[in-house]
C-alpha cells in the first residue's frame, strides 16, 4: 500500500511537471525564452487555494478555470511590453517578474507571508492531472500544421522575415505567452490541491529552471517533447536514488546533480532533446 502511494505521488508529479514544461514550451516554440512561469504558477496556486478555502461550494473545475484565467489576464499587460525584448533580455525581464511575484506573496500577510497557506483540501486526483495534461497536449499538438502553427515556426526561425510575410508577430507571441501562463496557473492549482499547501519558496527561480530543463531535455522540436523530458527527469532520480545513496549522495543534491549533468549532455550532444532519439530510431 505504501509502495502504491509512493508511486502514485510520483506519477502525479510526472503529470504536473509535464504541464509546467509545456507551459515553458508554449513560448519556446516561437523562439521566446520566457522565465515568468514560476510566477504564473504561484498566482494560479494561490488563486485556487484561496477559492477552495474561502468558498467551499465552488466546483473544482471552476477553481481550475479561475487559476488559469487570472495568470492569463496578468500575462497580457506584462507580455505587451516585455515581448518586445529579444533573447536574453526577455529572459532577464521575466526572471524579474517571477521574483516580484514571489516577493509579493512573501510580503502579503493575508496569505501568511513566507509561511504560505496550509491545510488546503485535497481535490486533485490523478485523472484530473492527466486530463489537464491531455488537454494541453491536444491544444499544442493541433496547433502544428495550422496557419497559426506555421506562423509560430516562422517567428522562431526569423522574426523579421515573418513580419514581412504579414504575420503579426506581437499578437502570436502574446497569445502563446498567455497560453503558457494559463497552463502554468492550472498546474499550480493542481499541485496546491495535491500537496495541501502553497508557500512562496516553492515558486522561486529554481522552479522555473526545473521547467526549462525538462522542456529542453525532452526537446522542443516536437510538442510532446517537454512531457517526455518532465517524465524522464521526474522518474530518473527516484530510480537512481538507491544507487546514489550507496555512493553516498543525499537525495537533494543528487537530483540537482542529475538535472544539471543531463541538461549539459543534452544541450551539447542532442540539441533537439530526447525526442530526436525517437526520430532517429524511426528514420533508421
Amino acid at each position: 500500500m505504501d509502495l502504491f502511494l509512493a508511486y502514485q505521488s510520483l506519477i502525479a508529479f510526472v503529470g504536473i511537471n509535464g504541464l509546467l514544461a509545456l507551459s515553458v514550451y508554449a513560448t519556446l516554440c516561437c523562439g521566446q525564452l520566457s522565465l515568468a512561469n514560476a510566477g504564473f504558477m504561484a498566482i494560479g496556486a494561490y488563486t485556487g487555494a484561496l477559492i477552495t478555502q474561502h468558498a467551499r461550494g465552488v466546483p473544482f473545475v471552476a477553481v481550475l478555470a479561475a487559476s488559469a484565467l487570472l495568470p492569463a489576464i496578468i500575462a497580457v499587460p506584462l507580455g505587451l511590453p516585455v515581448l518586445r525584448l529579444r533573447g536574453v533580455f526577455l529572459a532577464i525581464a521575466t526572471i524579474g517578474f517571477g521574483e516580484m511575484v514571489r516577493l509579493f506573496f512573501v510580503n502579503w500577510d493575508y496569505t501568511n507571508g513566507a509561511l504560505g497557506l496550509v491545510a488546503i483540501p485535497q481535490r486533485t486526483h490523478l485523472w484530473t492531472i492527466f486530463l489537464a495534461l491531455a488537454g494541453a497536449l491536444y491544444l499544442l499538438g493541433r496547433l502544428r500544421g495550422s496557419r497559426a502553427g506555421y506562423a509560430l515556426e516562422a517567428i522562431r526561425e526569423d522574426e523579421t522575415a515573418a513580419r514581412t510575410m504579414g504575420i503579426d508577430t506581437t499578437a502570436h507571441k502574446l497569445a502563446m505567452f498567455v497560453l503558457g501562463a494559463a497552463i502554468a496557473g492550472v498546474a499550480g492549482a493542481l499541485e496546491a490541491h495535491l500537496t495541501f499547501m502553497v508557500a512562496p519558496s516553492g515558486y522561486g527561480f529554481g522552479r522555473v529552471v526545473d521547467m526549462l530543463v525538462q522542456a529542453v531535455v525532452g526537446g522542443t522540436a516536437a510538442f510532446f517533447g517537454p512531457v517526455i523530458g518532465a517524465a524522464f527527469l521526474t522518474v530518473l532520480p527516484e530510480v537512481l536514488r538507491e544507487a546514489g545513496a550507496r555512493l553516498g549522495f543525499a537525495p537533494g543534491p543528487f537530483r540537482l546533480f542529475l538535472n544539471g549533468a543531463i541538461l549539459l549532455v543534452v544541450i551539447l550532444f542532442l540539441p533537439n532533446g530526447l525526442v530526436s532519439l525517437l526520430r532517429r530510431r524511426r528514420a533508421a
Partner: protein
Amino acid sequence: MGQQALNGVFVGSIYALFAVGYTLVFGVLDILNLAHQAVFMLAAFAALLLVADAHLPLWAAMPLAVLFAGLLGILLERLAFRPLRGRADSNISGLISSLAMGTVFEAIALQIFGPDTSRFPHGTFPDRLIRIGGASASLLQLCIIAISVVLMALLTLLLARTRLGRQIRAVAESPRAARILGVNVDRVIAAAFFISSSLGGAAGVLFALAFNSISPDVGRSVELKGLAVIILGGMGSIPGAVIAGFALGLIEVFTVAGFGSSYRDAVSFAVLFVVLLARPRGLLGQAAAREA
C-alpha cells in the same frame, strides 16, 4: 544619512564587483553566464576551507580562492561554452548550458557542505570600528570597499592598456575581424572567462566575509541583483556595471531606510523592469544591432 550612504557604497561595491565579471563575459560572447553565481559561491567555500581546515591566514586564502574561481571559469568555458560556439542559437543555448553547469556546481556544494549556513571561524578578521565623520564602519567593510575598487581599477587598466585588454576588446567588437587580425580568439575568450570568474570569486569571498555566512544558494540572490546591475549599466559595459553596482547598493539601502526591509529585494527588480522597458540599452550600453 552618512551612515546609510556608507552602507550603500559597501553593498554596492560587492554588487559592482560581481556584475563586472558578469558583464565582461556578456560583452565578449553575448552570452549570459548563469553559472557566475555558482563560481561566486564555490570561491567563498574554497576560502572557508582554506581558513577553517587548512588554517591559512586570510591574506593567503583569499588569493588562492580567487585563483580557484578563475580556474573554474576556464573549466566552465571549455565544457559549457566552447562546444556551442558557432551554433545558430548560441546565446540561448549558452545560457542554458551555463545554467546546467551552475546547477552541477551547486549540487556539489550541497553534497559537500550541506544546505545549512557555514561560517568563518571566530577571529578570522579583527573586528574594529572606525569612525568617519558622523558614520562608523568596521575595518572589514572598509577593506572590502578598498579591495573591490582596486580590483575594478585593475580590470579597467588591463582592458585599456595591455595587449590582452586590446585583444579582448577586439573580440568583443567582432570575433571574425579579430581572428583576421591574428588574434587567437579561443585563448582570448578563455582569458576573459578566467578574469570574469576570478572577479566573481573575489566578490564571493568578500560577500562571505561581510555577512559571515555561506550556503550553497548564496549566489542566487546576488545573481538576481547582478542582473539588475548589468541591465542598468548597459549589457557589456564595464564602467556601466561599476556605476550601476554602487547605484543599486545605495538605492537599496535608502529604500530599506524609507520603506522597510521587505522592499529591499523588490527594488532591484523594479529597477530592472523600468530600465528594460524604458531604455533597454541601459545607462551606458551600445546601440542595438541592425535589422535587415
